[in-house]
């Protein structure tokens, strides 16, 4: 070894190192091992750095994407806004359908509970062209047996009465109309008085004396005296009471959501009705009181209305 020049020394070193590695390979093949210990050390040493690197690169990439590479973001944002708008519209449609299904289910339930009372569900298809009158049009008419002076209700309460019937449609005077009214009474005190419209959302109870005890929040129900609607159907709730001359000034908030009607029930009879007790907490009957509050249509029919062809 003494006489080996330095250049040859490196050559010897090369040979030795290569031979060692060949042996290493041979050992691995012979033992079918892969130098696990060395790998574990190396990987253990490298993986924390790689993890840190991955974390750093993730941060850098996030920063790049969120703050710098925004060229496509505006377009993507527009697309998302458009999609969001469409989805909102779809949600609104679905909610509307869901609400409609709920309403129809309530109507169906009411109808099933009052199986002996002839009635038909009709859809509101229009309203009056005159802003001063509260009138709606339904999609059912004479062909379905709807006639003038039939009561129109919802499960929540009285809506109005049919004032005109056509072949496939009918016109309904809402309870809020100035010319509308229903025979009613205060639920707990049984004080009777017609309730009529004022051309505004609230109704009025007209002939309650100043000596009678009336409180805000009292429920007003049908009295049945108009002989159109069954007794004890909700008309509304007293929302305001003022002393007047000669009668109290009483305002009643309708039980039915008269301003947002979509489906209603038309009672297909002009006979006096008697709904199942406790059946519809919200049944209601529309009478047609006169402007003075007196029932206009004191119907005395004893047989159900005939269906018109």
């Amino acid at each position, binding site marked *: 070894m003494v006489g080996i*020049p330095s*250049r040859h*020394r*490196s*050559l010897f*070193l*090369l040979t030795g*190192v*290569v031979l060692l*590695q*060949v042996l*290493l*390979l*041979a050992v*691995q*093949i012979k033992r079918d091992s*892969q*130098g696990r210990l*060395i*790998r574990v*050390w*190396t*990987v253990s040493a*490298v993986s924390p*750095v*790689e993890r840190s*690197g*991955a974390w750093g*690169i993730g941060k850098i990439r996030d920063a790049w994407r969120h703050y710098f590479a925004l060229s496509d973001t505006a377009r993507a944002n527009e697309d998302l806004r458009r999609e969001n708008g469409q989805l909102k519209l779809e949600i609104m449609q679905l909610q509307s359908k869901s609400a409609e299904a709920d309403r129809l289910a309530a109507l169906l339930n009411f109808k099933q509970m009052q199986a002996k009372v002839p009635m038909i569900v009709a859809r509101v298809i229009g309203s009056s062209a005159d802003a001063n009158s509260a009138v709606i049009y339904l999609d059912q008419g004479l062909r379905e047996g709807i006639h003038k002076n039939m009561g129109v209700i919802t499960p929540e309460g009285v809506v109005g009465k049919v004032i005109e019937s056509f072949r496939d449609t009918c016109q309904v005077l809402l309870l809020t109309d100035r010319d509308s009214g229903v025979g009613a009474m205060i639920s707990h005190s049984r004080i009777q008085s017609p309730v009529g419209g004022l051309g505004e959302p609230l109704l009025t109870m007209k002939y309650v004396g100043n000596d009678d005890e009336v409180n805000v929040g009292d429920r007003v129900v049908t009295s049945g005296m108009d002989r159109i609607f069954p007794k004890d159907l909700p008309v509304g709730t007293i929302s305001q009471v003022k002393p007047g001359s000669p009668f109290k000034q009483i305002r009643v908030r309708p039980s039915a959501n008269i301003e947002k009607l979509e489906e209603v029930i038309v009672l297909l009879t002009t006979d006096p009705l008697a709904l199942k007790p406790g059946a519809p907490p919200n049944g209601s009957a529309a009478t047609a009181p006169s402007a003075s509050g007196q029932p206009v249509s004191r119907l005395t029919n004893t047989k159900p209305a005939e269906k018109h062809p």
Partner: protein
Amino acid sequence: MNDTFDLRISESHIEVHKFHGGTILLTMIFALMLQAFLPVYIPKANILDLPLLITIYFGLSRRNPSTGLLLGTLIGLLQDSLSKTPLGLFGIAKTVIGYLASSIGARLDTEHPLARFALTFSFFAVHQGIVVLVQKLLLAQPQPWFTMRLGISCLVNSILGVFLYYLLDRFRKS
């Protein structure tokens, strides 16, 4: 002896570059990290062989065959341990490349980019040849000597090497 003497005389005209403390070690580790890390995010980056480029560069710069081959051995074995190849496959190949680069660097001026490109290209080809040879002879894993991918890899690594060497030149001691 005369030949040896003459060669040593001629080697004395070639400058041996030294680096700041820890540069070689850190560069080696960084190259290995990148080699294992980069393809995760840039799959195409797996055609790069950064440990080989580091071996070549420091071999050419230090111009000491013993140091060069030992550095190649270390880098190769670490590369093996970070991959699924048996320990020694890249170790042998990079040992030889480290030796060759150091030996050639001791005789030639390797500072010109074209020379660096040509040398890297050649070393890359030799490296791949050794890897394939070891796989064939020792591991009984027949591999093709040449593929298009290998050619592209050879070219890309050579181009990258020129820029990388220029960057690493900044860490030399003046």
